[in-house]
Each structure stands twice: as structure tokens, then as C-alpha cells.
């Protein structure tokens, strides 16, 4: 449940289902009660009709009705049945619709009382109404009877079913309409959030520098905070770089003076000059390495993607200028869509070191290839036709300059520096033999 929209939709749907369900049940119950009352009334009216059509014997005693008020009483298995029973005796009369089946009144009722019940008879569900009657004969003796009329529930059930069908159809239709309305409201209500997400992606893709949309009040605080965060991180980054520049300048210039004073006085035939000069080189290497390391900013989320091809082209132009005497032949295959999410200075540093290595050690040819990787990221291959690096030397090359107590002259620090920055970005630098004859450096970022 990671989406606000589906959360809201799920919760609202559950509430809606509960509410509509309860409504349906209440309506169903109410209809059932009133339908049963109607059945009871109908049965009562049959009883009255039977009573009215009952015959009287000469002595005034009751005889079973001959003319039945409802033809269904005479039709076998019609679903409407009647029994007249004298209290404490066998039934006096049964309607012919019973077709030989027997049933007793469920309860004997005193005169004027009624009892409504539901029972089963020979696989049928029946509603029955017992009604007590006192019949006075000529001699003034009252005889107690119970009239029972029963009707198959099928009719009632059919009414209930048709009501239910209609009821649930309507409720279902309403549920669908409400859900659709709810979905539309949610989409509309959450649209500003989607806009912010899209705008953030735009920033990550490099299309924009800040969140510029017209956001609702509830989001304005968030978006303006994000904007100032982006701004702040840029300012901090550039201030940090500037102070590193200042530091480099103020450390390196004295070293440069020291270095050149040592050479000035080498005629003094003093060993200490050689020692000072050597130590200046070491200090320089340490400062260079540590400052470069400090300057690596690493991957930041809202960094603009950098077009790798463009950085490579700039570096190649610069290196062509510097290596004008050597003029290596440079073959390039640059995928212009390949981009690197990170700091441009870091990428320039990585590729500058690797490309210069290739220019320096190639005999005639340098080959550069930049391509996008299928699942994001970029792959850069740099090859040369120089002497190459032996497999057992790779670690030594990459370790160069990383240990401060090492006193290896300042050459070749570039590859280890590049490797370190690549590491900060979680990328990989691999060495292989190039088909051109020299080294093939492959960078995955």
C-alpha cells in the first residue's frame, strides 16, 4: 500500500461497502417483515371467507364448507391448504388441495385468538395461521374449532427475491457510481502531488533548476523548502570548492617557491637541498591527493545529469592542444544521450586522468567509447596502443598515492585518483588488454 491514492481508495471503498451493505440488510429486513404481515392478513381473509361459507346443520352445528371461496383450495398441491379441526378431536375437514396429506393445526387457539407460524410439511415450507372459533348450536352449546390456513412460502419467497434483486441492483449501481466519483475526486485532489513529483523528476533530468509550479497552499511550504535546500546545497558546494581552491593556492605557492629555491642553490653542494627537494615533492603529492579527495562531492539526488559525451569532447580538445607534438590519432564513438548523475567536476577529473594516461602512453592511437547502459548509468572505454599495464601491476598502479608514507615520485597518481572518485560514486574501473595492443580501461558509473 505505497500509494496515497490506493490507500484512500481502499479505505473509502471499505466504508462505502459497509454502509451500502448495512442499508441493504435493513431494507431487506423491513421488507420481509411487511411482506410477512401481508401474508398473515391474506391468510386471515381466507379464514374469514371459509367461515362465511361454512354450512350449518339442522341442529345448528357447523358443517364443512361446500362452496370454497378460493378455487386453489380444491386443486391438489396448489400451495393453499385449509384444515378445520374440532378441539381434542380428529380434523373435521381438510381442503382437497392437501391431496391426502395430513396436517394438524400447529396450536389450538381459544376463540378469537390467532397464531402465525412457519413450518415444514412433506418437503414444503408453509406459512400457517391458526384461528380459534366458537360455534354455538341451537341448543346453545358452544363448540370450539380451530381454522388453519396454510400457504406455500414459494409465493412469498418469489416476492422477497424480486425485491432483493431490485434492491441490490440499485445499491450495486450506486456503489459503482460512488466509487467512480470517488476515484475522480482523488485523482483531482492528489494532482498537485503528482505535479510536484513530475517537477522533481524534471530537476533530476536536468530540465529545470527549481520547483517553479503553482502549488496549493498545503504543499507550498514543502516546495519552497525544497527550493531553498537545492539552492543551499549549491551554495555550500561552491563555497566548499572555493575554500579548497584557496587552500590549494596558499599551500602550493610556498611549495613552488621552496622547490625553485632548492634548485637555485644546488651548486652549494649540500645534500640537504636534495632532501628538501624530495620532501617538497612528497608534500606536494600528499596535498594534491588529499585536496582532490576532499573535493569529490559524490552522488547527490538533485544533481543535474551531465552529458558525458560533451565532457569527453572538451577534454579531448584540451588534450589535443597539450599533446600537439605527439598528435595521437583519436577515434571516438560517443553516445550523445549518455549521462552521468553527479558532479561535473568529478566526472571531468575521472575522465581527464584516464584520457591523459592514454595520451601519455599511446604510440599513435587512442580510442574512446561512451555508451548508455541498459538499466541506467554510463560505460566509458578508453584504449591505447601503448605498452599496456601488466596484470600484476594493476594493484600497484591503483594503490599509488593512496598511502601517505609512500615515497613514489608524482607520476601515475592520476589513475589511482580516478579510481578513488569512481569508488565514491559506487562505480567500477577495470583493466584489460586492448585489441589495439595497450591498455583498455573500462569505467562503469
Amino acid at each position: 500500500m505505497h500509494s496515497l491514492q490506493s490507500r484512500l481508495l481502499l479505505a473509502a471503498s471499505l466504508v462505502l461497502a459497509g454502509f451500502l451493505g448495512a442499508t441493504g440488510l435493513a431494507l431487506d429486513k423491513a421488507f420481509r417483515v411487511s411482506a410477512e404481515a401481508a401474508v398473515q392478513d391474506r391468510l386471515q381473509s381466507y379464514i374469514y371467507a371459509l367461515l362465511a361459507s361454512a354450512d350449518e346443520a339442522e341442529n345448528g352445528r357447523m358443517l364443512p364448507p361446500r362452496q370454497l371461496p378460493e378455487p386453489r383450495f380444491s386443486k391438489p398441491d396448489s400451495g393453499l391448504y385449509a384444515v378445520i379441526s374440532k378441539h381434542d378431536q380428529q380434523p373435521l375437514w381438510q381442503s382437497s388441495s392437501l391431496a391426502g396429506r395430513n396436517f394438524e393445526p400447529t396450536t389450538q387457539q381459544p376463540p378469537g385468538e390467532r397464531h402465525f407460524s412457519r413450518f415444514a410439511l412433506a418437503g414444503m415450507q408453509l406459512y400457517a395461521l391458526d384461528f380459534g372459533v366458537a360455534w354455538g348450536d341451537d341448543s346453545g352449546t358452544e363448540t370450539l374449532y380451530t381454522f388453519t390456513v396454510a400457504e406455500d412460502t414459494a409465493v412469498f419467497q418469489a416476492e422477497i427475491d424480486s425485491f432483493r434483486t431490485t434492491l441490490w441492483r440499485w445499491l450495486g449501481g450506486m456503489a459503482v457510481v460512488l466509487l467512480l466519483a470517488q476515484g475522480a475526486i482523488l485523482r483531482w485532489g492528489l494532482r498537485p502531488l503528482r505535479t510536484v513529483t513530475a517537477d522533481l523528476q524534471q530537476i533530476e533530468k536536468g530540465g529545470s533548476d527549481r520547483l517553479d509550479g503553482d502549488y496549493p497552499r498545503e504543499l507550498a511550504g514543502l516546495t519552497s523548502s525544497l527550493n531553498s535546500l537545492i539552492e543551499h546545497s549549491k551554495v555550500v558546494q561552491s563555497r566548499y570548492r572555493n575554500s579548497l581552491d584557496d587552500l590549494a593556492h596558499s599551500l602550493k605557492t610556498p611549495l613552488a617557491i621552496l622547490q625553485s629555491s632548492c634548485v637555485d642553490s644546488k651548486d652549494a653542494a649540500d645534500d640537504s637541498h636534495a632532501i628538501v627537494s624530495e620532501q617538497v615533492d612528497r608534500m606536494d603529492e600528499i596535498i594534491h591527493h588529499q585536496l582532490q579527495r576532499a573535493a569529490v562531492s559524490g552522488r547527490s539526488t538533485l544533481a543535474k545529469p551531465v552529458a558525458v559525451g560533451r565532457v569527453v569532447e572538451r577534454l579531448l580538445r584540451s588534450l589535443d592542444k597539450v599533446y600537439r607534438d605527439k598528435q595521437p590519432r583519436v577515434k571516438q564513438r560517443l553516445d550523445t544521450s549518455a549521462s552521468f548523475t553527479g558532479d561535473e567536476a568529478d566526472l571531468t577529473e575521472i575522465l581527464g586522468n584516464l584520457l591523459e594516461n592514454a595520451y601519455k602512453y599511446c604510440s599513435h592511437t587512442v580510442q574512446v567509447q561512451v555508451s548508455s547502459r541498459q538499466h541506467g548509468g554510463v560505460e566509458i572505454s578508453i584504449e591505447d596502443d601503448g605498452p599496456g599495464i601488466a596484470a600484476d601491476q594493476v594493484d600497484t598502479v591503483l594503490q599509488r598515492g593512496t598511502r601517505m608514507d609512500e615515497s613514489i615520485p608524482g607520476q601515475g597518481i592520476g589513475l589511482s585518483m580516478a579510481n578513488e572518485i569512481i569508488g565514491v560514486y559506487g562505480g567500477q574501473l577495470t583493466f584489460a588488454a586492448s585489441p589495439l595492443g595497450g591498455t583498455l580501461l573500462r569505467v562503469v558509473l
Partner: protein
Amino acid sequence: MHILVVEDEAQLREQLRERLRAAGHAVDVAADGEEGLYYGKEYPLDLAIIDIGLPKLSGIELIRQLRAHDRHFPILILTARGNWQDKVDGLESGADDYLVKPFRFEELEARLNALLRRASGWSKPVLDCGPISLDTGKQSITVTGKPVDLTAFEYKVLEYLMLHAGEVISKTELTDNLYEQDYDRDSNVLEVFIGRLRRKLDPDNTLTPIETLRGRGYRFRLDASNG
């Protein structure tokens, strides 16, 4: 050669001035970007060494403005950070090479010589004119394969003439590029050096590589056989 050094650190600036002068160049120095721009615009220079981190006008901006004013002499940048962003920015603004501080003077000199030679249209470090061959890397001379021993100043004079082989070089241009501005131009020191050079290169007076054009200057007469 006439070289401008723009560096804000006084001690380093003075060291560079001393050493370049000792190597036979005429050197002007500037302590900030604006002063550098003034020298660059007003004086005929063969090369400039410019520090990237300058007060008033940054090194990058200085180079950009010099190039915008059609100053095409080679420029070497000095960078303290030595990161590629700086190097690329510098080279794109119009510099020709870079050097990371601290550097050894020998390295600086090698870069300067390469830049000067390229600026004169020589793509190889060895200049061959007939039997005379000058190696700008080793700063050595051979005539028909035999090494000739020259002083630093004689070498500079010959290098300048050979870099501009076939062109007429006035005395003023030659002194401008070999001495500072306030040098006494009336002295005939230059004629003495040219005379010595002729004797060392051509003791039998058969080649006559350097001709004197009355009232106009000197010309290195032998054509470049490579470059």
C-alpha cells in the same frame, strides 16, 4: 624571447624572473590580472606565463581578454589545484599548455621552449636549416653533425633567428626580445655577439648563415629543411 610572467606571489614571481633572465629571455612581470592585461596589450610578447588564481582579474578572464584583443602569443597557465576542470577551463579560454604548482624549473623551461618553437611554425623540437641543426629540447647546436659550444646568450640569439628563418629581424626587435625594455640600445653588444656566432658556426666563411642587411637588421639565410 620576450616573456611576461603574471603571478601574484612576489617571491615566486621574482624567482621566475631571475631564472628566465638567466636562461636568456627578456622578462616583464605583473602582480595581478589588470597589470597583466596592460603588459599583454601594450608590449610585443613572445609568450606569457599566467597563474590562474590572480587578484583583480582571474587568470582565465585575463587570457580570454588577451585573446579577444587579438594577442596570439602562446600562453602557459600555472594552476595550484591541478584539477581537470581548471585545466580545461584554462585551455578553452585560450591557453596552450598548463603546469601544476609546484614545478621544477627544468619542466617549465621545456614547456616554454616547445611553445615558442610551435608558435614559430616548427612542429618538431629540432630545427634543421641546411647543415645547421638546433635542438630546442637539449638546447644544443650541431653543424654538419659536429657539436658547437655556444653561451646561453649566443644560443638565444641563434634560436630567435632560426625560429624566424628567412625573415628580416631588426636590431631593435632582437634586443627587445633578449633584454628588458630599459636596456641601453645604443651599445654595439649585439654586433659583437653576431660576430662571435658567425665565427663559431662558420669558421671557414663558406656557409654565411647570418646576413647583415644594412640599416634593416639581420636574416638567417638558410631555409628550413623540416618543420
